[in-house]
């Protein structure tokens, strides 16, 4: 394998053994980006220092990393792939960025995403779509499509993404890599430009499970700047990487194997279950009865929070400011309207309107409040399930990657891409997607493993045990 194709832990070993240097890794990635990014279109911004500055030999982890365009990097334009944030340069680092910098990982640049993370295909970006490295005509998934694509195309060793309803796991599945969403409160959200504050969580996108654990080690932990981040010690997650699932009880929720699911996706997931069974895991059928309401609940709560979170993009302090040619209402109202009309894309407008509607007087009880209640029921479904099982296994996405343009005009079809991932966000539990083979179309299929809150160790253990008995994670795309 080429240097750029290796995992972070392999590169760290090589550095340790003097088989390579941080500088060589940077160079290798630089060449790979130059070679393939014109095809993948994943980077929206390369940082001048990232692959050019000579790394400090003292750095603990000099492995370059790509950052989703919704995480603030001091001195670097950060836009959430939205015109409305054009020119916004944060004067501060997100806590996660600070921690990555402390470890000495060079930041390669910002990667593409759906505008404000609103989407499952990376097509709503103001920078245009990113391609799936496995098939350039297909989407990489979303919203962290850029993060998944750069790892799959080996334009970065690993990447950071954010997951509000599946935005890390679904693109990881569609791009054949590992993507994990930590427990809500495990990783600080400070500096993550909010989509839905009660659902957003930052997590790693990596080539294998060990890298995922390594990166979570770096970014997890309490933060005085984020009161939703739980004050709880961070274990060394690499310690949970044991190839042993004997005696573990794993649940299979019947609501997740439904009609409309791509048959070959279903087959790959069942193959994976068979393999884990062979290794000694015990599988039990479970029920998560409120699953059918998850998508609706998510779109009520997520859009309500988003409508408020996006209110600050008003043209006053930063980003885009537009005034119409002729005075319409008042200079101020005109500025608000023109700025937001021109600055937000179609999907962002749709979500702001949906959210404002469900929060408004007369509708609040029927929509938002009802949504909160159903959310509690969904959480209780998982609590009950985890009384019986150690982990839950499901498909990550009902389909393999779809064509660019295929669902962009059909929001409902697009929303259903996240049908299996949304519940973990509503319940706040950790979940990981790992590669489990390929569909009949030759595109990757993902397997999702969920565990109870703050039991990332169990989640990593099951994922690792599966991975160590398969070769899927070693597949590299040739571009």
């Amino acid at each position: 394998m080429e240097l750029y194709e290796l995992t972070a832990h392999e590169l760290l070993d090589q550095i340790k053994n003097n088989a390579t240097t941080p500088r060589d890794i940077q160079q290798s990635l630089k060449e790979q980006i130059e070679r393939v990014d014109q095809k993948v279109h994943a980077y929206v911004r390369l940082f001048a220092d990232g692959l050019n500055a000579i790394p400090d030999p003292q750095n603990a982890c000099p492995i370059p990393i790509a950052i989703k365009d919704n995480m603030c990097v001091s001195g670097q334009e950060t836009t959430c792939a939205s015109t409305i944030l054009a020119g916004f340069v944060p004067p501060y680092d997100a806590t996660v960025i600070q921690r990555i910098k402390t470890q000495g990982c060079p930041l390669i640049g910002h990667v593409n995403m759906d505008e404000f993370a609103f989407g499952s295909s990376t097509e709503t970006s103001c920078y245009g779509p990113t391609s799936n490295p496995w098939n350039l005509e297909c989407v990489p998934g979303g919203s962290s499509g850029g993060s998944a694509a750069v790892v799959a195309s080996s334009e970065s060793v690993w990447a950071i993404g954010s997951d509000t309803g599946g935005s890390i796991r679904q693109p990881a599945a569609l791009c054949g890599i590992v993507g994990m969403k930590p427990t809500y409160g495990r990783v600080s959200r400070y500096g993550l430009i909010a989509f839905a504050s009660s659902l957003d969580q930052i997590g790693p996108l990596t080539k294998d499970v060990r890298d995922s654990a390594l990166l979570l080690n770096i970014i997890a932990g309490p933060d005085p700047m984020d009161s939703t981040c739980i004050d709880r010690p961070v274990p060394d997650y690499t310690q949970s990487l044991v190839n042993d699932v004997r005696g573990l009880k794993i649940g299979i929720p019947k609501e997740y194997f439904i009609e409309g699911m791509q048959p070959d996706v279903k087959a790959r997931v069942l193959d994976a279950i068979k393999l884990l069974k062979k290794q000694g895991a015990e599988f039990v059928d479970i029920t998560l009865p409120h699953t059918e309401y998850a998508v609706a609940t998510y779109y009520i709560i997520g859009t309500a929070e988003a409508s408020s979170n996006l209110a600050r993009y008003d043209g006053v302090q930063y980003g885009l400011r537009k005034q119409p040619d002729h005075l319409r209402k008042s200079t101020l109202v005109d500025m608000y309207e023109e700025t937001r009309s021109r600055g937000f894309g179609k999907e962002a407008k749709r979500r702001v309107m949906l959210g404002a509607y469900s929060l408004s007087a007369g509708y609040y009880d029927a929509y938002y409040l009802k949504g909160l209640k159903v959310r509690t029921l969904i959480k209780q479904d998982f609590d009950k399930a985890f009384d019986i099982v150690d982990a839950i296994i499901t498909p990550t996405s009902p389909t393999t990657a779809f064509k660019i343009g295929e669902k962009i005009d059909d929001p409902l079809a697009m929303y259903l891409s996240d049908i299996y991932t949304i519940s973990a966000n509503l319940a706040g539990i950790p979940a990981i997607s790992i590669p489990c083979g390929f569909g009949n179309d030759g595109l990757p299929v993902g397997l999702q493993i969920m565990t109870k809150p703050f039991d990332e160790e169990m989640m990593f253990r099951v994922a690792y045990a599966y991975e160590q008995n398969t070769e899927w994670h070693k597949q590299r795309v040739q571009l």
Partner: protein
Amino acid sequence: MNQLKQEFETVIGLEVHLQLNTATKIFCGCANVFGDDPNTNTCPVCLGLPGTLPVLNKQALFSSIKIGLALNCQINPYIKFDRKNYYYPDLPKGYQISQFDLPVAWDGHIDISVGNGQKKTIRIKRAHMEEDAGKLIHDNNADCSLVDYNRTGTPLMEIVTEPDLRFSQEAYDYLHILKLTLQYLNISDCDMEKGSLRCDANISIRPKGQTTLGTKTELKNMNSFKAVKAALEYEEKRHRKVILDGGQISQETLLWDENRQRTLTMRTKEDAHDYRYFSEPDLVPFVVDEKAIQDIKNSLPENPDEKLERFIRDYELSSYDAGILVADLSLANFFEDCAKMYPDTKKICNWINGALLQELNARKLNLKDIDLSVNDFIAIIKKVDGNILSNLAAKDALRYVIDTGKSTEEIIKEKGLAQVSDEGSLLVVIDEVIKENETVVQEIKSGKESAIGFLIGQAMRKTKGKANPKKVGDLIKQKLL
């Protein structure tokens, strides 16, 4: 007409916004100070920059609980915040973090005096925490408005009464008592001029005996308690006139125009905001433990009523005198410091409520604005006791001490204020006076002793008040009788 007028009842409720004087802002570490250069006390969090998150200032929470307790409220230990969504350039996030359905304090009350020693209880509906907005600066010469975000994120407490007030005077009295109660807590400047205390009012009228409320109007932009009273009086009259003319009051928000002494429509009910309140997801609700609340309760300073009672009891002051002291915490504290150094508390009180207040009123200052030491003040009283200063000279001494900041001793020396008690020099003056007032002298000699007072006065005049009047009287008596 007059009879009709009698049959109306006015119903008033007040909303007071109080800025807390915590060292830092409510959700970030920026300094919480008034009057600095625009946009110097700001950071990414209070500017609402993308990705930033609020973290609650513990001190602001404790001050809020203090206020709740001082207003006899129930304290809600489950602390939850909500977002109030609306657009305005001084509101950088597009929403204000506030408390909606679960205020930190609710169901309280304070009493106001309504004459004849009667008290009336005004119920406090709720008191909740929120963040202040920034300030727009309009420059008529510029083609734009500017925003100063220094105030953004200043901790605020909003204190809302039930509609229990019936007269503008009651509203005025309530505000005074409320302010005094808050001042005793030392959690706010309570300064309306600096905007650290602001008041909005709701008013409606209804036929006497009716239990349902009439249509209310909300009044804003009053810059003093007096303005609140004037605005309420104006609006009360306007409501009456509209209704007696057969019209209907429309529910609206009005601005008080101080110059024209009238209200002007700001927005009507149709323009009312739908604030789309929902729980603030960036601040996790939590429970303040009972012990913490109990500790705050135990740490509450004496309230004005308690102090008043104690002053009357322990210092044997009249309720009138004690009332004057208690109405200004710094005055009350000054009095108590003096009482530690000097046994005659009644006398101290007379000097504070008399000479000292006169000096302060003449300067339109409060005691806390001047630098007067207890030592110098007591020294003046003691000089009077020791016949070194006359009452008149003592007042002069006090004035000079306040003006110059010099000690009482220095001032007496410098200004030559000490009384003349030495017989030799007094006799010279007395001889002059006797010579110049022969008629009076004759009267005295023929038995009209009361006329001695006149001669004493003449001697005092000649010595410019420095003569010891008792001594002068004794000497005159010796000479003439």
